């Protein structure tokens, strides 16, 4: 049995999802030889620290009732720097302008020789190369499956399962909010504004939906794929982005009459990173509805491989984080 000491930095929906999943899978982890101890949980208001292992269910219920995880006045960065542990689970909110606190956290983790598993897109979309370099020179492992497509295992599929293949292109639907809105506009023959309001009511869209509906979120995910899989040195600014706000119900009907659906498609291949609404033939593997995500990977040996799955949700994203943790320590 190997004891792995982890910190959870950021205790919003994803961080809490990770705590729930770790509780639920504690026995399973022990069965495969991993004794995972969370030694610190930090949110924006404070921290809970216990080098013997934080009581996760107590932390979750404290967060629910008090809105904060702990009373200790110490930041994530301080935890990463001062408390000895193996892996930083970085789930702070994303910032695509600067990479934000997430970027500092990750760099500090590598500086102290810790591994990083994250769901935080911003730092990777802005500074992938710096992060990868810092991880390499520290001998740390850097895993970020949860940043692209939530539970849909796209990065590990390409880097592990399809190893040896040359990747020609990846295209797909990488934002569940846009997919939901377009699917519902089609079903209800309703306007973008109406279906955005519905998505907000159901919690599929943020109060400020810009990040999703203007294609920014999908663009960040493409940048991560471009850097991690195609070895590019791209940032968000290199993406040609068109969102879904101008799509009319009439255009969806015209498309349907000719056997198409309209989807917000992200694509990355040599010299091209683009997010734009596209016509997808009905019945095509990329024509999935609702909040689903989907990605088609074009390879030289395996041909085209398409996967679909839930692109968001706290437990789904935590699933990707858990699988990254297991892949690092199950040896």
């Amino acid at each position: 049995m190997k004891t792995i000491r982890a910190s959870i930095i950021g205790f919003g929906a994803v961080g809490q999802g990770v705590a729930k999943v770790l509780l639920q899978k504690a026995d399973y982890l022990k069965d495969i030889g991993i004794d995972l101890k969370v030694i610190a949980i930090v949110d924006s208001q404070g921290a809970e620290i216990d080098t013997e292992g934080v009581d996760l269910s107590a932390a979750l219920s404290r967060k629910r009732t008090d809105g904060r995880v702990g009373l200790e006045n110490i930041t994530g960065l301080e935890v990463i720097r001062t408390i000895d542990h193996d892996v930083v689970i970085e789930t702070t909110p994303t910032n695509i302008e600067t990479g934000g606190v997430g970027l500092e956290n990750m760099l500090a983790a590598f500086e102290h020789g810790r591994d990083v598993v994250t769901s935080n897109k911003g730092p990777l979309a802005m500074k992938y190369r710096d992060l990868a370099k810092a991880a390499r020179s520290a001998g740390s492992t850097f895993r970020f499956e949860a940043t692209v497509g939530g539970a849909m295992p796209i990065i590990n599929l390409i880097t592990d399962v399809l190893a040896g293949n040359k990747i020609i292109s990846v295209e797909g639907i990488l934002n569940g909010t846009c997919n939901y809105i377009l699917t519902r506009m089609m079903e209800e023959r309703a306007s973008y504004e109406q279906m955005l309001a519905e998505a907000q009511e159901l919690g599929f869209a943020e109060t400020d939906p810009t990040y999703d509906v203007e294609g920014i979120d999908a663009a960040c995910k493409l940048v991560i794929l471009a850097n991690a899989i195609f070895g590019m040195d791209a940032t968000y600014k290199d993406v040609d982005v068109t969102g879904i706000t101008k799509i009319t119900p009439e255009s969806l009907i015209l498309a349907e009459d000719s056997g198409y659906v309209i989807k917000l498609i992200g694509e990355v291949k040599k010299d091209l990173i683009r997010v734009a609404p596209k016509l997808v033939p009905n019945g095509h593997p990329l024509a999935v509805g609702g909040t689903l995500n989907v990605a088609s990977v074009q390879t030289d040996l395996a041909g085209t491989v398409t996967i679909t799955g839930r692109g968001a949700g706290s437990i789904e994203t935590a699933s990707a984080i858990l699988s990254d943790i297991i892949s690092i320590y199950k040896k």
Partner: protein
Amino acid sequence: MRVSMDIELKDVPGQLLLALNPISELKGNLISVVHHHENHTPRGLIPVQVVFDIKQENLDAVISRLEESGVEVARVGEERFLEHIAVILIGHIVHTDIQDTIDRIDRTGYAEVVDLSLSMPRIENPSSAYLKIDAVGKKELKDAISLLKSVAAEKDLLIIEPIETELT
């Protein structure tokens, strides 16, 4: 250019080879051969439809060589438009002169707008259009789409193209 040709062959061995030789000798690229063995013509010949790509200046030579070798050429037609694409436009399509948008594609000489469905909900709202464009070849189709994109950018129209896998 791509040519579709109906020829008629005698029902004896070796005739098909006789018919295809002149095409390959004149550097034509055979696309398809459909042999209608079951339908004899009234004169007892077998109709065959051949499609091939060839340089325009060599076509007459193919026809005369075929006729010299006793192959009946019943019909020669040019297949002008080989590539098709459908796109959607959204915006003030009519008010930005829809005729001009179409003309600019048609004037290329290698591509044409062959179908258009327009949906105009209310006068101040953006309209939506479904456009089908035919072109003489893959490259020309790509050029026509880039042209349409620049027209769309100029007129502030959103253009929605099919996914790449659909194009190839």
